[in-house]
């Protein structure tokens, strides 16, 4: 069964229009036209007539959960969410950045999404590999079943198998490319600190110039800050103008957190993020 993007787009338009007309929400976060078909853009519909501008196709990869924290608390909004995006919403609810009752989640079941820059199909290698949103109010389409279920962590095997020197060399090479445009943190739905630790000047955690030392500090700390929170949407890597595979490190940390604490990020609104939680019977083995 192939996904009908057109059908999703139509439903998205109808839902958005209805929600805006009834005043149930004041804005709908979805996708709109970009400069060409292959490059749609995140879009905010505020009036019922705006709903006609909504598009959805296989290039609509952006995580709309990123934009929720931009609006004042209490803003009623509808958000178009794909699988990973819905996990981001759940995670933000857990972190009390948004309230469930303020949101209408328009769930989009989809696979075969494509990276607008490279045209490659996005699969479990760079994202969490789920097809259906975890949480939604309206499902635009039918749940996807029968697609191969692949662990999002499979891609890590070759990096875990590297010896530590090779792995260090790999990360050094990758992180040295960083130009510190901060597209990764700005594209990330979970990065909402203001100011970000790297912009603080007292203490000054790391160098601002794009050289090895500052880059390592910025990225390692960012990986840590996203531990147990990263929902593996892969937006950081797609946003990166110099193609640093940040998703690999995020996946590794997510996998370790899942192994150690038995909970994946953004799967249930009842959960607490693993690093602001503990169990008395956590094993000391995790420190070994």
């Amino acid at each position, binding site marked *: 069964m192939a996904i009908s993007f057109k059908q999703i787009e139509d439903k998205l338009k109808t839902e958005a229009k209805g929600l805006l007309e009834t005043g149930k929400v004041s804005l709908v976060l979805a996708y709109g036209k*970009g400069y060409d078909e292959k490059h749609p853009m995140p879009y905010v519909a505020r009036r019922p007539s705006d709903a006609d501008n909504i598009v959805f196709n296989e290039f609509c990869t952006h995580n709309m959960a990123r934009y929720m924290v931009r609006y004042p608390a209490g803003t009623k909004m509808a958000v178009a969410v794909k699988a990973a995006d819905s996990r981001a919403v759940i995670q933000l609810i857990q972190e009390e950045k948004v309230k469930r009752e303020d949101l209408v989640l328009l769930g989009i079941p989809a696979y075969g999404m494509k990276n607008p820059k490279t045209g490659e199909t996005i699969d479990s290698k760079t994202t969490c590999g789920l097809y259906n949103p975890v949480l939604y109010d309206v499902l635009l389409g039918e749940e996807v079943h029968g697609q191969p279920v692949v662990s999002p962590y499979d891609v890590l095997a070759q990096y875990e198998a590297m010896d530590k020197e090779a792995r260090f060399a790999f990360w050094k090479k990758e992180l040295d490319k960083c130009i510190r445009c901060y597209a990764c943190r700005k594209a990330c739905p979970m990065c909402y600190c203001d100011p970000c630790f790297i912009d603080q000047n007292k203490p000054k955690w790391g160098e601002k110039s794009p050289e090895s030392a500052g880059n390592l500090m910025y990225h390692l700390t960012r990986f840590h800050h996203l531990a147990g929170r990263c929902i593996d949407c892969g937006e950081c890597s797609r946003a990166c103008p110099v193609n640093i595979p940040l998703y690999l490190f995020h996946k590794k940390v997510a996998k370790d957190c899942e192994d150690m604490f038995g909970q994946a990020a953004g799967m249930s609104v009842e959960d607490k993020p693993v690093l602001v939680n503990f169990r008395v019977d956590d094993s000391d083995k995790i420190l070994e």
Partner: protein
Amino acid sequence: MLKKTAINKATELAAALMEKGTLIAPVKEDAGFNFREISDAKQVDLNFHNTIISPKSAFFPQTEDFVRYQTGKSILEATPVELNIKPAFLFGVRPCDVKSFEIMDIHFSGTGLVDPYWQKRREATTVFGYAFDLDKPAEAEEFYQTLGIGAADPEGSDIFMVKKDNDLLMKAITPRGEKLLTGLNIPSEASADDEKYFDDTVAAGRNFKTRSTCVDARATAKKFEDLFHNTDFWEKMSHACLSCGACTFVCPTCYCFDICDETLFSRGTRRRVWDACMFTDFTLEASGHNPRTKVYQRLRQKVCHKYSYHVRKYGVISCVGCGRCTRYCPVNIDIFSIVEEAVKA
């Protein structure tokens, strides 16, 4: 003077240039091409469309050391970092990027106090322009035609290169280029046929199609001035914007920088680092006052700076239509579409 060399002999040409000074040329990296200082002539790779980071970094590197100091010691012991600039060759710059150097010259060395770093590097560097491949259509992001820049404009280059089948035609445009080209014995003399091909390419380049809209610098500047207070317009344009610095860092005409002191234990360096007007703390004053807290204000600043303020201050639009900002924008914001909308509005 027109000379030619086989493209597969570009390595020899590179080696010859490296003997005369520093060579900066496109290098293939895993994310794409970038201008790099060449250490091995084989690295030079002309099979590129355009680079990720613009060649402005050859004159205005992302970090530039000003002073080395020691904390706890007197300021008198701080030592300015001397610019040790050798003759350099910037090889394979696309015509739109060459144009960006002229725009940046006005800002850095043409008005007010002269920026010694930019000026000295500029003076020491011979620029080899390189025409776009006219057999292939322009990429969707590009719009240099809008700004009156051809795909094979030799102006601004010291030596301009055009690809002809498997040959590279090289023409000296300035006396400096003439002198260099005379002294190089790698390329051979070109035939009259080649001359014609070169001139035809330049002419064809002027009509080469990219995205295009009617942009008159003065009129556009005025248009944006009038649009400044149209918050609806700017909010509409910016609702996708993430406020990252990708567009400004890849841009050939963005010049904003930060001056920061980086200290490790007691030793430190005062250096300038590229900064971006898209960052939240760009205009955050120590008092806590920040005139541009909202995303739309920052995007407006960027677009208006290029298309309005710069025209009023320096007389030219500070954009060359290379399309990098659009290509590397994580959310596909397209400055051309914004300009188009504004002209229509």
